[in-house]
């Protein structure tokens, strides 16, 4: 485990806070434009290289973006790095393609509507320039291949298409009953043709002329009928061969190539559903150890399981829980403890979890409590009752870690998201708004001394909210929540979703 190395070898003192800037927006709303429900983004995911980004929406569509700035500048970048110049290039993306991944369905046996909303997207191993990804709604996972295909233009046929049609629809592909066709393709029983030794010179092969290409998304496999409850997570294994899917009560293990069977590896369903006290809220494979996976629960615990131990992993290898502070118990304690998302850091040593009020960073070698806790919503504590009444308390915010593991980020209300430094000694805590001017909120802050991030006078009270941002907490808008966001795997760049718009920032 070398997770701590980066922290240890980092130059003395915590890294400098980052200066975040607006980079791009896709699907920006014009003033007064109403957001269509189906356009609301419900999943965001970078691929492993960071060259591609995928979003899913409530309408069951998956949109792919590709990075435009890297390919030709790699050499240049290396030069710049060597001469220690600041690099002013940042990831830029362009729309690549989109496809309809899921359609609304109806389960007739259970009389249930199955929404087309994309719950999660995960990228798989790229091969031959084709992109592969898994997308899931509540019930069904699909494996997609997106690839450039040649647009075929055929010339030089043996038979002129119009003439062939005149001769009894021979070339008409739809009519497989036409008599000539049967002759052509039905003679498999024997070598009923006899040909001269040199072949027949009058026959020619079709010639394909056009070399134009276009992107085609094809659904390669459908992994269905394995979940009784709603799927909340999918996660690829580092072995490149398997993945898991988790619903409220069970986690199943699949082989990517086999869609008709899966193995149940975790089942928390009690014999009597009345005894149910805890559900699975999120699950993820360890980034390098193929046998290890973590899942979080609605009671605020994370369980680490070892697939090597047993076929059915009902007993966890490690349990991560924060001991409850005595006397602090209230009606909402359990609700706000529920973990909405967990992520492993790239090195696999740390795990990040998000509950309603906080972000917590865990060391997988330390199960006594989190390494650090970052307050995200502390100012909402007095309003929990209202949040409960309007169901906002059940909002599921996602969280993410930077590729270097030094920072963490998560979303909030009013289209805000927060970034914290998690290196030891770091006091970095930034609040940004998903808009073209991410620092807008801070600018209003009277108590804030300066926007200059190099300034050592900058005061950020770690943990507690910086007063200005949230002092006027009343103005927080619970309908505009920033649930989904993702950190670029190698650079300081964040993609986040505000309703139907995808905002990207860099530092």
């Amino acid at each position, binding site marked *: 485990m070398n997770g701590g190395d980066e922290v240890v070898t980092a130059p003395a003192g915590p890294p400098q806070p980052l200066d975040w800037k607006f980079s791009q927006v896709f699907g920006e709303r014009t003033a007064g434009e109403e957001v269509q429900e189906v356009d609301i983004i419900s999943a965001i995911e970078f691929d492993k290289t960071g060259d591609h980004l995928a979003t899913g929406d409530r309408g069951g569509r998956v949109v792919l973006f590709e990075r435009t700035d890297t390919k030709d500048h790699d050499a240049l970048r290396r030069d710049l790095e060597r001469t220690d110049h600041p690099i002013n290039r940042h990831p830029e993306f362009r729309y690549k393609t989109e496809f309809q991944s899921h359609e609304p369905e109806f389960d007739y046996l259970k009389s249930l509507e199955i929404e087309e909303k994309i719950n999660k997207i995960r990228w798989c191993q790229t091969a031959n320039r084709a992109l592969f990804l898994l997308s899931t709604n509540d019930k069904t996972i699909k494996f997609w291949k997106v690839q450039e295909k040649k647009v075929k233009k055929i010339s*030089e046929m043996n038979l*002129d298409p119009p003439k062939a049609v005149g001769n009894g629809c021979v070339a008409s592909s739809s009519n497989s009953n036409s008599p000539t066709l049967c002759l052509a*393709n039905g003679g498999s029983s024997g070598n009923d*043709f006899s*040909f001269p030794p040199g072949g027949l010179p009058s026959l020619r092969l*079709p010639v394909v002329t056009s070399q134009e290409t276009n992107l085609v998304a094809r659904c390669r496999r459908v992994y269905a009928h394995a979940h009784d409850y709603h799927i909340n997570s999918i996660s690829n294994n580092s*072995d490149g061969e398997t993945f898991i899917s988790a619903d409220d009560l069970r986690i199943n293990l699949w082989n990517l190539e086999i869609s008709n069977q899966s193995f149940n590896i975790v089942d928390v369903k009690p014999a009597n559903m009345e005894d149910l006290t805890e559900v699975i809220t999120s699950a993820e494979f360890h980034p390098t150890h193929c*046998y290890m996976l973590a899942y979080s629960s609605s009671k605020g615990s994370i369980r680490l399981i070892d697939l090597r131990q*047993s076929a059915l992993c009902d007993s966890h290898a490690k349990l991560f829980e924060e001991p409850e502070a005595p006397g602090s118990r209230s009606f909402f304690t359990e609700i706000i403890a529920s973990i909405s998302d967990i992520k492993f850091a790239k090195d696999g040593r740390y795990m990040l979890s998000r509950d309603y009020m906080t972000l917590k960073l865990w060391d997988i070698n330390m199960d006594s409590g989190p390494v650090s806790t970052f307050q995200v919503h502390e100012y909402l504590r007095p309003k929990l009752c209202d949040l409960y009444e309007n169901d906002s308390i059940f909002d599921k915010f996602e969280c993410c870690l930077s590729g270097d593991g030094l920072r963490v980020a998560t979303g909030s209300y009013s289209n805000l998201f927060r970034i914290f430094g998690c290196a030891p000694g770091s006091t970095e805590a930034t609040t940004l708004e998903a808009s073209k001017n991410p620092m807008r909120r801070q600018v209003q802050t009277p108590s804030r001394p300066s926007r200059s991030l190099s300034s050592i006078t900058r005061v950020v009270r770690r943990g507690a909210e910086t007063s200005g941002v949230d002092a006027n907490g009343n103005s927080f808008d619970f309908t505009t929540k920033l649930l989904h966001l993702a950190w670029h795997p190698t650079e300081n760049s964040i993609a986040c979703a505000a309703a139907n718009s995808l905002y990207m920032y860099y530092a």
Partner: protein
Amino acid sequence: MSTVEAPLYPIAVLIDELKNDDIQLRLNSIRRLSTIARALGEDRTRSELIPFLSENNDDDDEVLLAMAEELGVFVPYVGGVEHAHVLLTPLETLCTVEETCVRDKAVESLCKIGSQMRENDLIERFTPLVKRLAAGEWFTARVSACGLFHIAYPSAPETLKTELRSIYGQLCQDDMPMVRRSAASNLWKFAGTVESAHLKADIMQMFEDLTQDDQDTVRLLAVEGCAALGKLLEPQDCAARILPVIVNFSQDKSWRVRYMVANQLYELCEALGPEPIRTDLLPAYVRLLRDNEAEVRIAAAGKVTKFCQILSPELAIQHILPCVKELSLDSSQHVRAALASVVMGMAPVLGKDATIEQLLPIFLSLLKDEFPDVRLNIISKLDQVNQVIGIDLLSQSLLPAIVELAEDRHWRVRLAIIEYIPLLANQLGVGFFDDKLGGLCMQWLQDKVYSIRDAAAKNLKHLAEEFGPDWAMQHIIPQVLEIANDSHYLHRMTLLRAISLLGPVMGSEITCSKLLPVVVNASKDRVPNIKFNVAKVLQSLISVVDQSVVEKTIRPCLVELSEDPDVDVRYFAVQGLQSIDQVTMSS
């Protein structure tokens, strides 16, 4: 362009459809690629068709799969072995596609072609292809490369051989687990072609690397090849190099690896002498039988008989039998079921005394198992125990088990036991059968589940075949015919089904005297379903009875039914009459 003469028309369509928009038509054309090649002639196949296929390889996977398969047998169409190398180009591209089944097929076809190619072509054309794939940018090419080394290696000159070994070594340490998996699962094939000295040095080094891989799935496949690899080595080398690895694997942290060992252990024993079996493999196997993961115990229990067969009876009794006893009381029903399906085979190995003393109590406890599959597995292998200890000892415990299964509330269990009744009848003999099981066979005819009633009717037929018509006349027919008066029409329908099955076995005479009157009587049933089934049964009896009976009894009955108010009854009656006419005409 449209100058194709009439006889060529079909082949012209076939060629044009290589590029049709409809995938089914493209698939058809690819499947008949050999016809196209013959029409074009060998020269143009080489110069036009093969390049055409090489260029148009971004098709659907189904088409590519078919192409990969066809090309494997294409050598005659390109002009024989001396031109076989032209086929390498399209197959090389197919080796790099993303779909595993296409790649596997392309590798298979390349191996087929490579094994026919001339040595010179192998060195100049095939080996470079293998090297290109092994150095491929995408993992798909490298995965395919692993499966081709055993073709390229034997004919390569010494320097090239060294290079190939080193490339394979690199593949075993590739970044992508998929490549390492492919290297692991193909290692034994490659090893089979490598000279003994290099086998011991290079190949074993690769093997050891793979066995220490941190991906469970790679280690898993390394185990799978263990036995095959072991057989290539001298027994002492095998004991020195493979045995420690296997013993180590049998205690691997991952239950999946141990599961694989449990499955492979027996084969590895064949490669080793008796001594290492006793000192190393036996303790390893005993550990696996007592593994804490049920899946591993299932795999180990399933091999218990095979393993005992290579041990001396003393060792089996001393070491394996205690484990078998434990397994028969295992907490997992699947372990007990796996044990039950093979444990019978131990009887001949252990001999009569040990069987009666030690094994019989185990059989009996498994026969009383609460899980029906366990009991069924024992019963299905009854013939094996019978040979050793005789049925008398068993019958006492057997019968309650059978009766219980016969009345199990799961109809699939009842179905399974019915299917074993002929075997039981054969083993138990007429006397025992009459006393104990006859009643059950009749009872099933009136089961609530159709499948059971149907199986019961078939069972009667098997019994009649087993014990002969005379016995059937005495023990089956009277009871069956009684059902004719049953008030439930579904039961009466079962009777008709039984009659149609029994008729051919019982012969013309009994059919005419006993069965036919019942059928004819049933044609006056008030339920139309019965009546049209009568029509169907009569139709099936036409071939059993004499022509005169057909005319005298069957035809009038069918004629009457053909005027029935119910449309279905009329339909089947008319069908019956038609088949009478057909039989009459043909005779």
